[in-house]
């Protein structure tokens, strides 16, 4: 009874250590070790980590694989871009246009008045809310329609993929309202603060880290709440959960919306740090790539998602600087390797090979070894054949990397 009775706070000791280590790496180590230029890259990568975080909850815990997370990343990014674009399109900045005061791409498309749905984005508060709520609302509509009718697994993946395709075509096709394939570019200031300077980018990096840590805490809270256990239970035996009196669909809708909002926050931070937003994030390819960040980090590990994102992107950048032709081989190989050989990603490797040696150092790890021997899965066994790929270590797995 020792463990089950000792949980009053939602973070276990090893979680706290993991978060502190991550915070230390992001706040102290990386800013000191990297020059400003590389640090800005890290800031950009971290925005993808928000998506990966959402996928851990949605895919890893609840077993819902969405191939349309780019849509939410994009929606969040576009909301932020609309605000910034309006600020950049003041009447004096745009006086050479036929209609001054509206974004340049609208003017090129013979639009003479700001469309109604752009109007509220003059307001930063509304924009911040929209970043979180618009994607969540969209996810709610999609999720509600599909989960209520028990569409799941492969079908959900394919339909979300189709949604990503539709969204891309729409954004590109409605260029008068969206900036088309070029996206919304040339963003300059946030409430008068120039976001293009190096000092601003540094500040934004730390804001991004702060938000990410906050979102990690939210993810931990959800994961360690009863809801987190219900998600795992649902992935395993959906019917049993239903016949324990739970409305399974509403839990799925919740976690899908949460993942959407997390992605959208990432998208908004991306727009702020990189200075533009374009439909190339919304499509199928980026959406699937974001899944691989999660898979590499460990689909069940919240902190693993962050490390996985950083690792893949770092590899992508350095690989493509040296051997651009080989990068696709690397990325493709990564997909296959992570599925065939390391279904639990970095977190799984950590747990199998590193954590056992750290046992005495961590209170939590030591406690785990105190569980009956039968509870410790044999090291490095292939995953049990329970779809969708429930790993042998299950909920215990994330503990290690964290």
């Amino acid at each position, binding site marked *: 009874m020792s463990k089950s009775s000792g949980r009053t706070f939602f973070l276990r000791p090893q979680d706290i250590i993991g978060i502190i280590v991550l915070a230390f790496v992001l706040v102290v180590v990386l800013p000191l070790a990297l020059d400003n230029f590389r640090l800005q890259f890290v800031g950009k990568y971290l925005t993808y980590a928000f998506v990966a975080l959402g996928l851990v909850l949605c895919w890893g815990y609840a077993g819902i694989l969405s191939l349309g997370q780019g849509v939410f990343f994009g929606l969040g990014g576009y909301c932020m871009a609309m605000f910034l674009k309006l600020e950049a399109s003041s009447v004096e900045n745009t006086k050479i246009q036929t209609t001054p005061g509206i974004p340049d791409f609208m003017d090129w498309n013979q639009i003479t008045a700001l469309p109604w749905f752009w109007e509220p984005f003059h307001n930063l508060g509304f924009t911040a809310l929209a970043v979180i709520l618009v994607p969540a609302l969209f996810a709610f509509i999609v999720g509600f329609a599909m989960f209520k009718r028990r569409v799941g697994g492969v079908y959900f993946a394919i339909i979300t993929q189709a949604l990503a395709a539709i969204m891309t075509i729409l954004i590109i096709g409605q260029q008068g309202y969206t900036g088309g394939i070029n996206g919304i570019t040339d963003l300059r200031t946030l409430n008068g603060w120039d976001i293009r300077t190096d000092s601003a980018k540094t500040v934004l990096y730390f804001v991004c880290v702060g938000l990410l840590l906050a979102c990690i805490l939210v993810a931990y809270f959800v994961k360690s709440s*009863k809801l987190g*256990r*219900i998600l795992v239970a649902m992935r*395993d035996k959906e*019917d049993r959960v*239903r*016949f324990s*009196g739970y409305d399974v669909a509403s839990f799925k809708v919740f976690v899908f919306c949460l993942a959407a909002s997390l992605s959208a926050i990432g998208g908004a931070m991306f727009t702020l740090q990189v200075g533009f937003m374009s439909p190339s994030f919304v499509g199928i390819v980026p959406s699937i790539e974001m899944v691989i960040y999660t898979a590499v980090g460990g689909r069940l590990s919240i902190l693993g998602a962050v490390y996985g994102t950083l690792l893949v992107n770092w590899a992508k950048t350095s690989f493509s600087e040296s051997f651009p032709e080989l990068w696709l081989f690397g990325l493709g190989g990564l997909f296959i390797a992570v599925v065939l050989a390391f279904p639990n990603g970095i977190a799984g490797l950590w747990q199998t090979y590193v954590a056992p040696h750290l046992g005495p150092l961590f209170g939590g790890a030591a406690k785990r070894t105190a569980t009956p021997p039968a509870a410790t899965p044999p090291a490095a066994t292939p995953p049990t054949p329970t779809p969708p790929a429930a790993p042998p270590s*299950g909920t*215990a797995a994330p503990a290690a990397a964290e």
Partner: protein
Amino acid sequence: MNTSVITDAMNKDFVLAVEGLTVSFDGFKAVNDLSFYVDENEIRVIIGPNGAGKTTVLDLICGRTKATTGSIRFKDRELTKMKEHEIVRAGVGRKFQNPSIYEDLTVFENLEISYPKGRSVPGALTFRRDAAVKERVQEIAETIFLADQLDQRAEYLSHGQKQWLEIGMLLIQDPELLMLDEPVAGMSVSERKKTAELLNTIIKNRSVIVIEHDMKFVEDIAHKVTVLHQGKILSEGSMAKVQADPKVIEVYLGH
């Protein structure tokens, strides 16, 4: 059974009233115009050859399968119109034929999830593992002989223990109607004995529907037995009466 004999007034005395229930899959009537009634605190055993529609009846009651026609009334509430989780919340518990537990979670967590609180999304987020929860889990764990295994991941339990765990998950909900689908199937002799003992303690103060093949076991627990054959009731009554029924003998023993 002739449904017209039963009046609405009489319904109130029954915990469960199934009337004129029919379900067809692509024209095949798995359950055909079925009617039966379960009293308060009654233990009803449904027997019948394979394919008689036993499991389908349970599926219909708990909402897993939707009836084509007919009604299922539980304490005067129409179940055919309700969703699965609403039926559970109304007080109907169901154990599946194969042990259906959460292998990735510990025994404690398995029972905790079944604890009938925090069943909505916000409820689950704010659910706290307070003393009452722990006490109740401990109590149930002792009943199902798993008090020592609370921190064990469920996938490492034996088959019999998994069956007990699932029964425990139902008990913690304290349902008024408990439906068990072959609770002793695949068990060793000693496990079977222990299970019979378990069932005898848990069937108090609730109605129970059990599907079982093991006649010895049925004889031990049944108040009343319903024999299903080809989706219809072949015979109903006490074990002795059913065993004497020539129709039953014919179905079971052949011509």
